[in-house]
């Protein structure tokens, strides 16, 4: 990680990562440690491809407090933070300079030779691109054929989501911002991705409307940004549904039951064993 500074392109990422590393994070970032460190410890980029994400597991509910917590943002990353995570995804660049290998904590990149493609993290690709040291090769999924196919799939199957890269929204935005000239048919590509994004977000909303009395939800193939947008609302709603659907929890929550023997015990319906993991 420290050798990153040697590259002179280094993005200040050092401090940010370090603060994650030491586990001491400013207060508003505290709840995010889990996710950040995941990125550092696991092979995050590989896990993104076509992998079913179990998004709102009950575990994530129990991490936050029961319904009624006063901070609705508790489980929300900022979009900037999601983007930061996406910047670790690898992309292919074609350098026009010669440069020694860079040794980062996430791996070694380079050496770089003019016109010889190399894989680097997106943040490095963008930094090099900004300085005119490379061109970026757009990822394969950003082809018009593939995007058209995905969009059709999204529209045809209202019940399910197409498998898309976990960070497709962030990656495409970064490339549109910084590597316009490297993307063939950029207008078409951009509008396809926007359509896909809108169709999917609408689908998420439709999905949410169907919630009722459920404690856990599983939706496959949602992307990082999509999950993040709905996370605070979903977690809170599920907590509420769970709380009101489980008289046992309600009794646990209340201090009344353990007080005095004469108190009427809350009635427990027959089916009231905890069933936190109902699936819809």
């Amino acid at each position, binding site marked *: 990680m420290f050798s990153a500074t040697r590259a002179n392109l280094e993005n200040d990422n050092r401090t940010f990562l370090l603060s994650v590393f030491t586990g001491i994070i400013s207060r508003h970032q505290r709840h995010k440690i889990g996710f950040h460190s995941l990125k550092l410890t696991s092979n995050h980029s590989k896990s993104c491809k076509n992998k079913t994400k179990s998004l709102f597991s009950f575990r994530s509910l129990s991490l936050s*407090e029961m*319904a*009624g917590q*006063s901070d*609705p*943002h508790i489980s*929300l990353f*900022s*979009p*900037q933070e999601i*983007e930061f995570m996406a910047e670790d995804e690898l992309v292919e660049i074609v350098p026009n300079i010669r440069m020694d290998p860079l040794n980062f904590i996430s791996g070694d990149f380079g050496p770089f030779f003019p016109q010889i493609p190399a894989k680097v993290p997106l943040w490095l690709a963008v930094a090099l691109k900004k300085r005119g040291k490379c061109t970026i090769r757009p990822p394969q999924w950003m082809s018009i054929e593939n995007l058209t196919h995905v969009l059709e799939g999204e529209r045809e199957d209202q019940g399910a989501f197409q498998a898309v890269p976990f960070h497709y929204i962030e990656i495409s*935005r970064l490339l549109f*911002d910084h590597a316009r000239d490297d993307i063939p048919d950029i207008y078409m590509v951009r509008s396809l991705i926007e359509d896909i994004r809108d169709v999917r977000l609408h689908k998420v*909303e439709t999905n*949410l*409307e169907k*919630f*009722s*009395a459920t404690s856990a939800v599983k939706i496959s193939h949602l992307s990082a*940004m999509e999950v*993040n*947008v*709905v*996370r*605070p*609302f979903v977690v*809170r*709603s599920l907590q*509420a*549904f769970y*709380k*009101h*659907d489980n*008289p046992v929890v*309600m*009794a*646990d*929550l*209340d*201090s*009344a*039951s*353990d*007080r*005095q023997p*004469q*108190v*009427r015990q*809350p*009635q427990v319906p027959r089916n009231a064993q905890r069933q936190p993991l109902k699936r819809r």
Partner: protein
Amino acid sequence: MENSRETGSTNDGAASSQNANYYDIDDILAEEELVPVVFYKSANGVKVDPTAEKDCVEKGAKVELPFWLAQELYLRQAVSLSIPTCFNQNTRREIQADAACVDLKSRCPYFYEFGCKIAPLVGDRTIGKMLLSTFQMRYKEILTKAHTTVYAPASKSLAVLTKEEISLHEAARSSMAAFKKWRIGGPRFQRASVLGRKRKPTE
């Protein structure tokens, strides 16, 4: 922990689950909701009955007490409780008729939280069911409002929502707004939110 000592030592070792919310402002306010009670016993040296001439309350007095007091007295068989008006049959009928439009806020801003607290005491199982069905019926409306008011916080339609419903609405609205803002781009660094929105006039 600090809290368990606070309540535990002074309070028959009860109120164990209260500790988690000891400092929670919403929990405190939810327990301020009033419950109609009838005193079984009289009590000296208290100011709970505004009609009493002295600082005391007579056996048989009908008073409305905040939940935090009513609960403890009920558990010690000093009072009997009746169901607060926000959970009575009238309200329930209205909710059944058109849950989304009922003004729950004016009835009880802590409708769900208060309901959960009072239900085990009055031994009315239908309250729990009613809370769930009310939430189910209002949930969709909250969601729809949240996504249509991304840029316009606190509109008129929010006036009927309870505290928890507003938090839910706000959770949905603010994350969507943050996403849209990111999509458009612009400054990444912002004035600290704790300072409030308005800027000191400088001109």
